[in-house]
């Protein structure tokens, strides 16, 4: 093996003072005559100093809190940020149910009656009341059957058409139709 290759093979041990005396003597003799290996040795020693002096990275202040939270979640059997499908659907479903309930109460307050429509919705005829409805006339409400995972928006429009026989009329006001429209988020 050529002396430079031999030196490269053992330079690690040389730098750490881990060489046996015989090998050490050979390498030191080689270093005296080989400038390339001398430079290599100097570079490696300097590099090791640089590596040892690399500044530490600071740990975030919130590290312990976050760890505690992860452990807590682990302890209760939930991984962070995940919910069951039921849990994800529960809140919107409750919202929709509440909205439907409010609409139902509103309709019933106006003393309206419900009749079945032919296109999968229910029609309701009602009466406008003072300031709540800014126009006079009969009111007709249409509440479409909604998919369970949708929210609803109510739209009211004046309808000049005469109500059908199936609509229950209250008073002599023109009909107003309230339509529930699915809104996608």
């Amino acid at each position, binding site marked *: 093996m050529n002396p430079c290759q031999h030196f490269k093979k053992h330079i*690690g041990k040389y730098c750490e003072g881990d060489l046996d005396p015989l090998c050490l003597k050979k390498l030191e003799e080689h270093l005296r005559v080989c400038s390339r290996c001398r430079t290599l040795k100097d570079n490696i020693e300097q590099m090791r100093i640089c590596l040892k002096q690399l500044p530490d990275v600071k740990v975030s202040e919130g590290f312990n809190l976050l760890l505690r939270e992860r452990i807590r979640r682990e302890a209760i059997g939930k991984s962070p940020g995940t919910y069951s499908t039921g849990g994800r659907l529960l809140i919107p479903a409750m919202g929709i149910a509440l909205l439907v309930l409010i609409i139902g109460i509103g309709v019933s307050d106006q003393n309206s009656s419900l009749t079945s429509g032919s296109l999968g919705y229910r029609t309701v005829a009602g009466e406008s009341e003072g300031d709540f409805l800014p126009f006079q006339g009969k009111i007709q409400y249409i509440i479409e059957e909604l998919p369970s995972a949708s929210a609803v928006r109510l739209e009211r429009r004046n309808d000049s058409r005469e109500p059908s026989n199936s609509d229950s009329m209250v008073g002599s006001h023109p009909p107003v139709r309230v339509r529930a429209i699915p809104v996608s988020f």
Partner: protein
Amino acid sequence: MLNISTTSSSTPSDEELIARFQDGDTYAFEQIVMRYKAPLVNFVFHFLGSRIDAEDVVQETFLRVFKNKHLYRNIAKFSTWIYTIAGNLAKTELRRRKRRRVLSLSKMGFEDKEYDIPDFLSSPDQVVDGEMKETKIRNEIQQLPFKFREVVILRDIKDLSYEEISRILKIPIGTVKSRVNRGRLRLQKRLRYLLDQ
């Protein structure tokens, strides 16, 4: 050697702490976290180049220690055990990155600028030079093949003994020494332009 496994009479050793934790003393676990979080974050940071990712890996490491405390047996040093877990998780993260092809070399060093600057009396130019040099060194470490990178980090940065590295990586001491030597030669080659300045 690691300076974190102190065994003076006033300070419990790592092995004593984990034994107490195994007996249900959660305060002992907190002490382990306080003792190891910074060394482990720095250790993993050298692999991943991102402090945020490193902290995430170290959190996972502590979580695994918490969940699997019963798996530790007092036949090896606790530091060896926890470094093995952190190293394996860092490897997994690197493999995951490779799969997703999101390993960004330019990310390293620019995202996290919270390094301590050792010499506070330096001029701004020297500080900038120092930071650039440090960033380049960290980048070049990341360019090393993994098998060389891990031994160079453990030996020359974390200052672990060859025996400890051998236990952590589960490879013979002779292989560790050989890899350290080859890793240093490769790194020196890459950093020669800096070291000659």
